[in-house]
């Protein structure tokens, strides 16, 4: 019985992959394995074609109503297959490589969204759009992001009269202190705004950071990113009180910002604008 089921699944897999080759937009059934990808797909007008998302896909509102296929690091293969996708979009950041391999073995068509940095986002969107048959829309979205970025780069507050860069710390979680390190979109954003990320030369992307070092490096501005359903102000009270000698806290330059920069998606420009607004 089991064997029949397995072969049945394989046959289904074959059938769906046969459809996927052409991937005419109207007939495509897409599964997104990352919140950032879900946002991009919606921005490309493919919302109606999404048949499955992760439990963390919460933007836009409609994404919450889509069938769930599990988390990012532990998606359910069964749930994915049962939705008969023509295309599964994965990321290199959050999804396990083995999952992609399993999908390929089962003849499910996959697309891996490689972009991890701000500069790679427009290219990634174009590539994704070309694969999904929405080349023009993707190009438009990519250009929007590109122009948004270059506008930010040229805005007047970015160029300081002196060559002294503002020192910035972006706190991802206060206890234990985790901050945005190199290789993150946040680090890119800080650089774009011509500031210095004081955690810019650590070894990992979101390091557990030493409070001593924060005091030593004396950031001028501290951003605290929002986490879903958490009151960041009260959670970060303790850690801020222990580094209250740094200029950022003394001069009241501690800002609680949204989670837009945690996802490399269409809202990323808005996220950078938010930082820029605080830095004015």
């Amino acid at each position, binding site marked *: 019985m089991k064997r029949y089921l397995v072969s049945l699944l394989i046959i289904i897999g074959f059938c769906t992959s046969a459809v996927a080759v052409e991937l005419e937009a109207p007939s495509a059934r897409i599964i997104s394995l990352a919140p950032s990808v879900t946002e991009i797909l919606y921005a490309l007008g493919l919302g109606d074609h999404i048949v499955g998302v992760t439990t963390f896909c919460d933007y836009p509102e409609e994404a919450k109503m889509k069938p769930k296929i599990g988390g990012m690091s532990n998606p359910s293969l069964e749930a994915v297959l049962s939705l008969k996708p023509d295309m599964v979009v994965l990321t290199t950041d959050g999804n396990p490589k083995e999952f992609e391999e399993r999908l390929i073995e089962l003849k499910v068509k996959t697309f891996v969204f490689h972009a991890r940095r701000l500069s790679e986002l427009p290219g990634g969107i174009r590539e994704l759009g070309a694969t999904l048959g929405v080349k023009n829309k993707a190009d438009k979205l990519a250009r929007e992001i590109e122009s948004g970025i270059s506008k930010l780069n040229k805005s007047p507050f970015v160029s300081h009269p002196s060559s002294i860069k503002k020192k910035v710390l972006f706190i991802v979680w206060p206890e*234990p202190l985790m901050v945005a390190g190199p290789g993150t979109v946040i680090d890119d954003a800080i650089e774009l705004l011509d500031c210095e990320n004081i955690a810019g030369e650590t*070894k990992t992307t979101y390091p557990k950071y030493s409070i*001593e070092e924060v*005091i*030593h490096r004396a950031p001028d501005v501290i951003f605290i990113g929002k986490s879903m359903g958490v*009151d960041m102000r009260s959670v970060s009270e*303790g850690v801020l009180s222990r580094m209250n000698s740094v200029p950022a806290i003394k001069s009241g330059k501690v800002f609680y910002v949204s989670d837009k920069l945690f996802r490399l998606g269409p809202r990323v420009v808005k996220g950078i604008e938010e930082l820029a607004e605080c830095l004015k």
Partner: protein
Amino acid sequence: MSKVRITLLAVFAILIAAGSVFLGPRIISPFGISDTDWIILINIRLPRVLVAMLMGMALGASGALLQGILRNPLADPYILGISSGASLTAAIGIIGGMSFLGAFTIPALAFVGAVLTGGIVGGMGWKRGGLWPERLLLAGVGLSFLFSALLMLMMSVSTDEGLRRAMLWIFGDLSMSEWSRIPYGLAFVVTGLLLSATRAKALNALILGDEFAHSLGFAPQRERLVLFIAVGLMTAASVSLGGMIGFIGLLVPHIMRFFLGADSRLLIPASALGGGTLLCIADLISRSLLPPMELPAGVITAIIGAPYFLYLLRRKNVLAI
């Protein structure tokens, strides 16, 4: 002779503690302290070293006590499930982003979890008017499995970032040590140490068997209960101060037995001092190795402690509990 050794150990512990306040990713010279250095010294390093000492002492002493109470060389403070209970409640708080007591929320949750679990284990181990070592041990192991499973369940449905936060806390995190945590930590650890120091003789007798203890004039069940409460208090305080730090509770008492013998009157204070010193060194390494990043101290205790233990095992005669 043994008194000399334990005094040496105490001096060594104090030297290490004092030294590690000045050492770190940036060495602070005691002769030219700048304003920033002063802030770091007082607000960050001093409470951190004190918490490391307290935690290490609590773990070392409760390890020595438990190995005696349970007459089992593999016993450690975490075997009773106290830490799993504490981790579970703490993880609920961390993943759920609770903050009803501000920065105190997670330590408070961990403490409540630890005490509740200790109570349940004690209740399960209680039969015919007393605590029975085998029952305690099995109840602890059983509960520990249950709580670990619940913890895994919770982690597997949480977001990746929530997961990482919870992991970092559970693996032992001393970076959050602050002055406000010292008084209650100190109160519980000192109470536990005093309780166990006054009962050390009774523990010696208990190790030889209940009948033997009885014939020496000790009430085995009552002594065991007092010692169990001491272990519970110290373990709860230590988990609440900085999460789970492995190795110390299990192996520091054994290392001390190699040097000082199995007499509980010496072994308990020696294990406490040894545990405190080891955690101080481990924390120093964990914050200095890859600055500005910090590593979990619990990993370092095992990496430096385990090879040393194995070396001693080859060199010395193994002593019974």
